[in-house]
């Protein structure tokens, strides 16, 4: 494993530079910031109420045949989260906050399309190769990070996957919610029980994304978190652009 000595890491906000040599550059437009932070509690209300619904029939597990390696979820999880078995309350919250979650997501989708912001997020033909280099660089196995725009290639791929999972969660959720009235929507998932399965596993997927996302923000530092609050990253004045500012993770 090589130690990263050749590349002086530019601190995300160039903290040591005198302030008159710095400018603030807008990386997260106001709409994105609002939508991002509104989504955060909504997503967790949906998962919290969804768990109460799942609990009424918690049949999913990882394993082969009748052998279960991990059953979702062990009692300890229920107790830790303080979730009494309250299916009806879970449903009431889920089908109330679901609208807000969908509205927030729809505005986000429209915003991405209207402002062409999606071009910063969707991977392009170089992203797979570059993402591999990002991972190697993060693991200190490669000295230099690949070039990036607002987001690096690994971010682009993981954000796109997370958005795709969110979309599948919403569509499968509607298929479970109104299988007859939205017929043939459940058919997309192989039926009603298929839609439930997809809805569950996509949620697990989104939780894994969230975990990695938080870890990466912590690794990336305060400047990254701050940029999602203020919209700006600090950097040196041109013509000496920073090597690669880690905007967010």
């Amino acid at each position, binding site marked *: 494993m090589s130690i990263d000595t050749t590349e002086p890491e530019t601190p995300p906000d160039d903290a040591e530079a005198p302030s008159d040599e710095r*400018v603030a550059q807008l990386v997260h437009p106001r709409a994105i910031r609002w939508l991002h932070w509104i989504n955060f509690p909504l997503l967790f209300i949906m998962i919290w109420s969804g768990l109460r619904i799942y609990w009424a029939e918690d049949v999913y597990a990882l394993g082969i045949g009748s052998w279960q390696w991990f059953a979702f979820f062990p009692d300890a999880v229920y107790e830790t989260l303080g979730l009494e078995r*309250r299916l009806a309350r879970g449903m009431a919250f889920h089908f109330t906050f679901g609208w807000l979650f969908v509205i927030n997501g729809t505005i986000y989708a429209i915003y991405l399309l209207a402002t062409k912001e999606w071009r910063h997020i969707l991977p392009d033909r170089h992203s797979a190769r570059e993402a591999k280099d990002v991972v190697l660089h993060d693991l200190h196995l490669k000295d230099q990070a690949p070039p990036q725009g607002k987001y690096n290639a690994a971010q682009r791929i993981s954000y796109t996957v997370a958005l795709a999972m969110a979309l599948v969660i919403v569509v499968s959720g509607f298929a479970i919610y109104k299988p*007859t009235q939205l017929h043939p929507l459940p058919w997309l998932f192989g039926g009603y029980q298929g839609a439930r399965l997809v809805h569950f596993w996509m949620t697990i997927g989104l939780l894994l994304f969230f975990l990695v996302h938080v870890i990466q923000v912590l690794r990336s530092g305060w400047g990254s978190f701050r940029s999602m609050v203020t919209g700006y990253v600090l950097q040196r004045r041109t013509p000496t652009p920073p090597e690669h500012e880690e905007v967010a993770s």
Partner: protein
Amino acid sequence: MTDDPTTERERELRAQLDAAPTIPIDDYRKRSRRSFLTGAAGLGAGYLGWRWLQDQPNVGGIPKPLRDTLEFNEDVWRTVSESRSAPEFSVSKATPIQVNGRIGIRNEIDLATWTVRVEGPGGDLLDELDISHFEALPQRDMVIEHKCIEGWSNITHWGGARFSDFHERYADQVGDVPYVSLETPDGLYYVGWDMPAIMHPQTMLALRLDDQPLDQDHGAPLRLATPNKYGIKCLKRIGVIRYARERPADYWAERSYDWYAGL
């Protein structure tokens, strides 16, 4: 390391970023402070909103705004479509169905003396019917996915009469009533239905399960069956069928569930 983009790829990516506006550091400090204050205010507002919601008076066991939203959802979905039908399956797909709810059917009854009271919206007795009346209605079979509100579902083979065929006899008498209420003979379990849903061709007064007469655990001698509402609405051992002008009481809707419970 180089500060100058050297490859086309780097130039392309950097160009995306360079297009973003920059502001002087002093302006930024003001904006940054404002953003954090806005964030803190938003956090506080969110917390207060969440507390407010929990503190609202309960209606049917859940805070009123949630109950209102369930009723709003009902309006939305009744507008979207209540006439669409669920898929039906071949008989070979049917599997035995578990017994889930026993409220209202805990004691055994004498099936030979069982009757259904049919009541009009004023509480007037329209009919008292025995099983032969339901056996005389046009019979049909229906293999559908019965869905429990807990999450499980089962492909189930029901046999019996459409509620709409049963209703024909009373259509002129009761006129345009919007609801129907059904109760077990002991009155311990009761469900409310809106008229369009109970008149749906897949809403069945079931007499048979897998070609056999219902056993008492499954609601003998007569129960409701449908793929279009959760099982909690499929009352077993029907004792009373009452037409209603007002939205009827519903056992589970009084216990935090959605009154509509439509799929």
